[in-house]
Structures are given as C-alpha cells and as structure tokens.
C-alpha cells in the first residue's frame, strides 16, 4: 500500500515536471531559454517516472528491478550533450537571443568558426 502510494507520488511528480518542461518549451521567449526546459525539467520528470517504475516493479511485483536506472543514467549522460550541440548550432545560425551578452569577450559567442 505504501509502495503504491510512493509510486503514485513519483508518477505525479514526474508527469508534472515533464509537462512543465514541455510548457516551457512552448512558452519561453527565445531559443536559448527554451532549451532549459528539456534539459532539466524533462530529465528529472522522466527520472522520477523511471524511479516510480523501479519502485513499482521492485515493491509491488516480484523481485528487484533496477534496470530503468540505466535509462536515467543514459539520459543524464546524453541530455546535456544534445543541449550543448543545439546551442552551438543555434549560435552558429545567429538565432536571435534575448540574453545579455557576456561581460568580457573571450571569443564567444562563436564567430565564423575558424577551421
């Protein structure tokens, strides 16, 4: 019973976060801020749901079942990289940014890539 409660809780939390992430994706003003939605809220949201699944199968079903943790690990490794690459692409494309420029210029944001 407790287990079910916990599972439900995690589901609620996870779903909420995932939803908020997607809302952010739609609502936030410019590309660079939008990017924060997926990279954070979604990862945690999904993380929570995966945790829910782990608990569900471990507690309410037979035997320990941790393999959803792999997906979390995977997401935590990849999501930042995706974001990173997307920002780079955006910068390269001169996607308009509402953000304040860096204090002092260290060659950012990337000018014509010197290759």
């Amino acid at each position, binding site marked *: 019973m407790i287990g079910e409660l916990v599972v439900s809780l995690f589901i609620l939390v996870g779903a909420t976060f995932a939803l908020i992430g997607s809302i*952010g994706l739609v609502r936030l003003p410019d590309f660079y801020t939008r990017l924060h939605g997926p990279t954070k*809220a979604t990862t945690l949201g999904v993380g929570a749901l995966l945790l829910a699944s782990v608990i569900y199968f471990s507690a309410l079903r037979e035997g320990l079942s941790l393999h959803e943790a792999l997906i979390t*690990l995977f997401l935590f*490794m990849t999501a*930042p990289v995706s974001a990173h690459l997307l920002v780079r692409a955006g*910068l390269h494309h001169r996607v308009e940014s509402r953000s304040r420029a860096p204090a002092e210029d*260290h060659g950012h944001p990337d000018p014509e890539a010197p290759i």
Partner: protein
Amino acid sequence: MSGRAEASTKSGFKLFPHPVLTVVLVIVWLLLVNSIHPRMIVLGLGFGIAIPLFTRRFWPDHPRICRVGVLVRFVPVFIWDVVIANLQVAWLIVNFRRELRPTWVVVPLDITDPYAITTLANVISLTPGTVSSELGPGRRTLLVHSMDVDDPQALVDRIKRRYEAPLKEIFEC
C-alpha cells in the same frame, strides 16, 4: 556519471585495459538482465573483458580517477542541485508574471583533462538554469547560458567553487 561513480569504488586489478570500464560494464549488464544469477555474472564478466578489448583503441587516454573520496562527496551535492535546479526552472516556467533575465556568462576554466571538462559541462547543464553552450578556443573558457541571473559574476564563482574545484581534485593529480 553515477555509473562511473559506483565503478570507481571498486577500481582494483590492472590486468584489464580499462578496469573501471570492466566493472561498470558488469554492473550495467546485471542491471540490464535484471538478475544476479551466477550465470549472468559470468556472462557479464565475459563482456566486461571482451568489450574493453574491442573498444580499446577508442580510448586513447583513459580517465584516471584519483580522489575517490571527493567523488563520493560530490555526487550527493550534485543530485541535490539537480533537484533544486528543476524546481527553480519549473517555477520560472510556470510563473508567468516574472520577467526572465537570461544571460550569457563566460566561465574561465582551470581544468584541462577532457573528461573533467566534459563532466563539468554536463553538470552545469543539469544544474540551476544553466546550459554549457560552447567551449572557447583552446578550451580555456566555457560559454554558459543561464536562464535567470542578476549577478553574472556570482554565478561564475559559484560554478567554479561548487563544481570545478572538486572535479579538478577528482580527475587531475
């Protein structure tokens, strides 16, 4: 990174090209098959040895983790920050009235080890409203985009203090 965290605790024998990797693989395997039946352990060990041998050449310089203790202390901090970060971002998103102050900040880097830099970048991206956007020339700076900042310098300092320092200890010695 958590996988490698657990892995580091058991780093021992040197007769494998990447002992850490081997251990990680065995653990991942056991997670995959979702059982600790001896058969699976043997199988996992088999892969744990075979795959590193196969991918040996993809690892010109394998990561060295010296200060395990620091890592152990770092992980919970990181996870906590992630949760906080999510709450903050969530709040920023759902709070319609609040005006965002997105900012680009440049973080000068002291660490040079590629694995360290990567870890740092990932950590930054996963924690409070920041996304690590671009490595500067010569990997001496890291361009970070933050969602809502009032004092950029404070952010830079926080990143260097809270994440870069421990990572430097962990990876570079």
